[in-house]
């Protein structure tokens, strides 16, 4: 067994930013473990533009954004292993990985940052009935096939789900000569960005059906068509509205889930809402010295926000390695009335009072609301929002003074005030 101060699992945008920040805080004993043959993570297959407006003040493609961070990691001489798959972590921070080059290796770490991203919800998670012909792909798999490997997975395509990956793939498949017959969305709104509906669907006259879903997949050897139906307000398909759309491919863009099998091995407490870890304001999980950041913690809208969060994780991990104070007394923040979750999820009841940002998602589209924070039933912060939606992460920043009130309270609540005041 070898020893390392900081082991970072995942060499995507989260891992790279965490490594860079940790180095810049003075830590030199860092290693990044990446299972793919190159650094960059999912950005490598996101060849469209729109990344980096916050971080670099310019609009980059995914691989260009990744390259900026890879370059910074290379310049600092931060060590990394490619084709190295972590197979286990335990609560004593022993990290075991396998790679063709190194074999089976266990590293004893002082701190671990889990930056392993998320994975797509598959067909099985949404229980679509029908046959098991070839031609059903998650949108991200299709993206990898087209953009990295150069294969077109189908010619006549229906896409279920109007999240950004689904929208981006509608345009991408169209660019490569496929016919995208429809994008079908269960909800009455899209969780994707408006700009993507304009430039990926409207530009190419691809129809988007809201409040519709796929009820059946047809085709024994290869998909021959999908049955699409409207849903009622309980999201149940309406039988009479069923129609067959002939196609050879169904792409699923039906949500992302943090990939947390490793965290479970380490007995990290997970949130039932996000699927990510329960973290404090230092992004530390319930296991001392194990940190999380990026999409493994909660799924972000923009990579820029992943980078910012991960730099913070890198910094906090270094403070921990140097013997920073560990507070055992934690207060769980209650999210109520349409606020699904917030990150951080718990607060340390210590005497560190610094300004703190909270990221959160709401459960539905709400208009004219106030995001409010209550300490022991007293409102300490409010932010009016003309509209909030599940597809858009909300962000509030609380001052050190407010944080002092929260940390000394018995209960803290983040909530939505709709219409009249609560």
């Amino acid at each position, binding site marked *: 067994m070898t020893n390392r101060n900081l082991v970072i699992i995942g060499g995507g945008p989260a891992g790279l930013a965490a490594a860079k920040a940790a180095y810049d805080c003075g830590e030199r004993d860092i290693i990044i473990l990446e299972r793919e043959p190159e650094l960059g993570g999912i950005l490598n297959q996101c060849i469209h533009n729109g990344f980096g407006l916050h971080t670099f003040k310019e609009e980059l*493609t995914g691989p*260009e954004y990744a390259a900026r961070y890879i370059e910074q990691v290379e310049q600092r001489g931060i060590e990394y292993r490619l084709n190295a798959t972590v197979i286990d972590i335990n609560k004593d921070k022993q990290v075991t990985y396998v790679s063709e080059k190194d074999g089976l290796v266990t590293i004893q770490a002082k701190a671990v940052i889990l930056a392993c991203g998320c994975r797509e919800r598959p067909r099985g998670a949404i229980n679509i009935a029908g046959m098991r012909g070839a031609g059903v792909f998650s949108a991200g798999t299709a993206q990898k096939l087209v953009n990295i490997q150069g294969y077109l997975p189908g010619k006549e395509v229906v896409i279920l789900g109007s999240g950004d990956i689904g929208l981006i793939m509608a345009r991408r498949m169209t660019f490569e000569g496929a016919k995208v017959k429809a994008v079908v969305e269960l909800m009455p709104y899209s969780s994707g960005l408006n*700009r993507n509906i304009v430039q990926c669907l409207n530009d190419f006259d691809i129809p988007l059906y809201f409040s519709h879903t796929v009820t059946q997949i047809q085709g024994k050897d290869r998909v021959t068509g999908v049955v699409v139906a409207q849903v009622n307000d309980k999201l149940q398909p309406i039988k009479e509205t069923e129609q067959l759309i002939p196609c050879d491919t169904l792409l699923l863009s039906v949500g992302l889930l943090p990939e947390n099998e490793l965290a479970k091995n380490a007995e990290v407490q997970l949130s039932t809402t996000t699927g990510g870890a329960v973290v404090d304001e230092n992004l530390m999980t319930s296991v001392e010295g194990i940190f999380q950041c990026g999409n493994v913690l909660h799924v972000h809208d923009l990579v820029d926000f992943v980078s910012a969060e991960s730099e913070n994780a890198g910094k906090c991990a270094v403070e921990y390695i140097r013997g920073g104070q560990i507070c055992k007394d934690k207060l769980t923040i209650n999210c109520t009335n349409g606020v699904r979750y917030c990150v951080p999820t718990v607060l340390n009841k210590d005497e560190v009072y610094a300004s703190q940002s909270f990221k959160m998602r709401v459960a539905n589209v709400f208009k004219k609301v106030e995001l409010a924070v209550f300490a022991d039933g007293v409102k300490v912060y409010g932010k009016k929002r003309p509209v909030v939606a599940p597809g858009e992460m909300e962000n509030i920043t609380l001052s050190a003074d407010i944080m002092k009130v929260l940390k000394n309270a018995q209960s803290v609540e983040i909530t939505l005030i709709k219409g009249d005041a609560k």
Partner: protein
Amino acid sequence: MKEMICINCPLGCMLTVDDSDLSNIKVSGNTCPRGVTYAVNEITSPKRMVTGSVKVTGGNQAMLCVKTCEAIPKGLIFDCLEVMNGVTVQAPVAIGDVVISDVCGCGVDIIATKNIPKV
């Protein structure tokens, strides 16, 4: 009056555009000046960035991802993709290298968006 969503950045501002006088198009609802430029272009000559990929040999990748270095006329998107489809480049390639110059005669180059070393 027209309503449109600005596609310049992920904010996606809802713009209201008064195009009754094409020489004096009025735009509201934008958060930044890019919204005005977008709306005026969208009325007079809509343009789009095109991102895609071309084949690459001699490197460790099958495909090289590329982009137009600026937005091209919307009507040229598929002509541009057609040209990209017929191109194979040789590694090494660096980000920013011109892969196709002056694509479709519109004065815009197609450049590499990934570093692919020679193997």
